[in-house]
């Protein structure tokens, strides 16, 4: 290669774009027609062409959703419309029926039974296997709602990094520090509302004006059945350093967990 790497890359991309245009226009699939004479460039173009073909083979997208997918979507739309139009017994606009709503209700009841059964099972194991005080695990979104209903007030407004680390060292066995958070994100303090175990530690935050709760516990206390997102609340999970971290938040992305780090 006679030119520098940046020059080569720029030439490569220019030629690749030309080649793409030619192929799109139905020209022959040969790199030699680009007019370039640099053998290295031609080799790279040929190689890139094969890579692109492979990527297309592996990730070729469907042309559109299936009829079943569209029907499901339409049904969901109708179900939501039914929720909104109280007292309207007939089908919603577009000839929708109430069937999806009934299914949703059945699913909700089934989910509630499953959660109750899981909780009962957990309690049974706890009482039978370990002689510990009674503790009922709580689904994390319920935990969030309980804390929010109580005013989203932290039990401990911790401003001392050493005390902060010590809380996690005592309760979870790993001292944690809180890295500098970006503008719009603020830690209110710590709470101990239970959740995964009686030792679960919660950190309450405000992120862009909305309440966000991070909960931390030992990884062996983790229970995925308690960590289900709902329509309004997302539950994000991370696991590192023998700890499991959850963030319960109305935001679409986790905004807090990355700032909880082991103490150096």
């Amino acid at each position, binding site marked *: 290669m006679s030119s520098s790497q940046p020059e080569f*890359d*720029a030439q*490569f*991309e*220019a030629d*690749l*774009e030309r080649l*793409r245009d030619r192929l*799109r226009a139905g020209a022959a699939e040969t790199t030699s027609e680009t007019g370039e004479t640099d053998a290295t460039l031609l*080799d*790279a173009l*040929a*190689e*890139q*062409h*094969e*890579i*692109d073909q*492979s*990527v*297309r*083979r*592996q*990730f*070729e*997208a*469907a*042309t*559109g*959703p299936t009829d079943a*997918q*569209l029907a*499901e*979507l*339409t049904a*969901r*739309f*109708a179900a*939501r419309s039914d929720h909104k139009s109280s007292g309207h017994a007939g089908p919603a*606009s*577009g000839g*929708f029926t109430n069937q999806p709503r009934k299914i949703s209700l059945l699913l909700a009841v089934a989910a509630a039974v499953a959660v109750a059964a899981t909780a009962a099972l957990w309690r049974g194991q706890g009482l039978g296997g370990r002689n510990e005080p009674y503790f009922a695990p709580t689904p994390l979104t319920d935990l969030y709602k309980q804390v929010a209903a109580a005013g989203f007030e932290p039990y401990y407004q911790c401003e001392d990094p050493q005390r902060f680390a010590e809380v996690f060292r005592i309760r979870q066995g790993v001292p944690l520090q809180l890295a500098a958070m970006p503008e719009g994100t603020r830690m209110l303090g710590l709470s101990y509302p239970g959740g995964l175990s009686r030792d679960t530690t919660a950190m309450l935050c405000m992120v862009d004006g909305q309440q966000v709760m991070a909960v931390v516990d030992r990884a062996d206390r983790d229970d*995925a059945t308690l960590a289900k*997102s709902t*329509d309004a609340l*997302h539950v*994000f*999970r991370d*696991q590192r350093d023998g700890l499991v971290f959850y963030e319960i938040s109305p935001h*679409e*992305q986790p905004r807090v967990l990355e700032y909880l780090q082991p103490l150096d």
Partner: protein
Amino acid sequence: MGEPPNQPAAVPGASIRIDDPEEFAARYRQVYPQMTVIAAAIVGDRSVADDIVQEAALIAVEKRNQFTPGASFAGWLAAIVRNCALNYRRKCRRRRTFPADPAHLRDLHGGDAALPEAPLDATAVAAGAVPHEAFDDQVHAALAELSDEARCCLLLRTVQDLTYAEISQLLDIPAGTAMSHVHRARSTMRRRLADRETKSV
């Protein structure tokens, strides 16, 4: 080199009302292929992308009152798709399942020599001397080493043939960033694949 990076994009699904089920379904149909590419790029598996996109669409219906009128429908749905795909990937990691990919099987077998190291030579692949599957495995592995954002940009550009302005609007990143992701990803992949070729010889 392609279109100017900051050219205004006309992504399908921009500036619409989504209260009407038929309008919503029409827009969904229009952006569906792009959404499946985004989902597949994040989870690295085309086969589950349709389910992830459908899940995202159902969430979008639930949250349609949060859609800002005049905003890009495609960009809004893409954000939900990304979130669903990330959740799916987290769940898979928690399950600790092992993909039946030859490269991964080799890891599972502790580098068992009975599982052949597929040779990589783009020209040999083109000439039909090397099965596509072997080459695809290596391309797949090289893709996995890219960042999520770079992989999304590369696949949207390569599979969907989107302009950088369109990618920019879908992923909510500057068009210049999308372009440099694609360029760097291509260069990185060629280099990685060449390295593997050298090692396997």
